[in-house]
């Protein structure tokens, strides 16, 4: 196997990569997140499941401040994301440049890929580190080639996203996020916009990342991935975490009625 593509510099100690405490998010009167807490340690992979509308995607988006939060705290590598605490203890939203700096260490993979259509696959991966981190162009391109090769797309570097299949686009998107050498990767239903025959190629890339020790939070209903790659499985319902634990235990012996019915529904739809 090729050398690990996960940067290990930040994994030296065991302090949490992600620490979310009592996160509350409301859209109008609707409390989408009602006090969610989660701690993710280095090299851990957490899979989040739950019915649609349970708040799992919103939670993920709050983690890199694509959504604001109304209460609670989110720290990544010990630094607050999106907010600073003012003197009176209230949360104060930080300016866009500071937020941008905080996000550099957090990779995000979208359900709908969101590749840059005017750039080739290679430039999608190589341009962000140049523009954001000031990596020299040649170095960025070389690493982009390595990453594309790792996701099995070495021969597609000159293709525009419109010329790639959904599965290929999502693999480029993963490579793009990895090019920033993130300490934490967030996946928002990365396979749910894909045709069934393309799910496997994306899941296997994510699995490799998890095996390489990438710290990640994955919202997905791919239970095969959860079973084989996740350290924790977390069940969301009604804006709360109703249950969490090691995947085999939670799948075999769910304690909560909502988890039981959700898992059996998933099982039925995949049978």
């Amino acid at each position, binding site marked *: 196997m090729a050398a690990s593509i996960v940067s290990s510099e930040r994994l030296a100690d065991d302090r949490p990569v992600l620490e979310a405490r009592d996160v509350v998010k409301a859209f109008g009167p609707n409390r989408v997140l009602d006090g969610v807490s989660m701690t993710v340690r280095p090299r851990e992979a957490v899979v989040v499941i739950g019915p649609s509308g349970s708040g799992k995607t919103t939670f993920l988006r709050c983690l*890199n401040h*694509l959504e604001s939060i109304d209460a609670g705290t989110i720290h990544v590598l010990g630094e607050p994301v999106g907010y600073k605490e003012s003197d009176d203890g209230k949360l104060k939203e930080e300016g*866009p*440049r500071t937020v*941008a*700096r*905080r*996000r*550099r260490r*957090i*990779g*995000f993979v*979208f359900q*709908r890929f*969101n*590749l*840059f*259509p*005017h750039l080739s696959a290679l430039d999608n991966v190589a*341009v*962000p580190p140049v*523009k*954001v981190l000031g990596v020299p162009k040649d170095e960025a391109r070389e690493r982009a080639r390595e990453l594309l090769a790792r996701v099995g797309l070495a021969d597609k570097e000159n293709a*525009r996203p*419109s*010329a790639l299949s959904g599965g290929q686009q999502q693999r480029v998107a993963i490579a*793009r*996020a990895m090019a*920033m050498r993130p300490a934490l990767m967030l996946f928002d239903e990365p396979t749910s916009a894909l045709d069934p025959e393309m799910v496997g190629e994306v899941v296997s890339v994510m699995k490799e990342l998890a095996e390489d020790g990438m710290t990640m939070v994955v919202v997905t209903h791919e239970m095969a991935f959860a079973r084989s790659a996740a350290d924790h499985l977390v069940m969301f319902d009604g804006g709360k975490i109703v249950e969490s634990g090691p995947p085999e235990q939670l799948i075999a012996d769910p304690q909560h009625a909502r988890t039981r019915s959700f898992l059996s529904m998933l099982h039925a739809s995949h049978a």
Partner: protein
Amino acid sequence: MFDWSFFGDAVFHPSSQWVTGLWRTIYISVVAQALGVVFGLFIALARRSRFRLPRALAGGYVWIIRGTPLLVQLVIVYNGLAATNIYRFQDLTVGSISLPGVIQAAILTLALNETAYMSEIIRAALDAVDSGQTEAAKALGMTPAVTMRTVLLPQAARTVIPPLGNEFNLMMKSTSLLSVIGVQEMFLTAQSINSATFKTFEIFAAAAAYYLLLTTVWGFIQAAIERKLGDPGLRGSRPSFRDRVFGGRGTQPGLLEGAR
């Protein structure tokens, strides 16, 4: 009777005065349009600002400029400012090039007018970029400025080109209004020939022929630019020059093929 030989002479053996007028029409249009695009970009950015003041100022600017006739704006900027002793455009000489005051006023007014229209075109093009693009840029840690430069503007540019071509076509024809403040461009030249010869139909038909020539040449250039900037996947769907001038095919199968 229409004097064909006078018309033919005017078109094929233009006087040096006529050629000068044509040249003025061209360079005034090009400079004013270029400035309009640059200023228009800034107004468009101001209208998307997260602060209220630049938004309001830019909105007010567009409201006033688009709500008043270019002809009135020309007279205010050149004659109005001078009459009230606020500002009088002076002839300017830089090296061997001299730019008469009236042409400065002409270029400035056309540019300020065009700015309002270009800003709306650019704003619409930026709004048309999928919101997932901004989210992806944010998630990669790009600041708003970097997002604008590397993600939004390159994608918006493609959308801007067709209406920009339209604007430049209008601009070349709008220069004929400059005759009212006394810029010796093509239209005023035709007028002075008219008052000396009374060949009204013939000389203005010759002027029309020249405007048509300008806009036709520009049509070729625009088509070439659009082909070059187009998404390679959509290249087949770009209208050819013939389609552009003489009406397109009834259906454009290429557009559907290229759709995602």
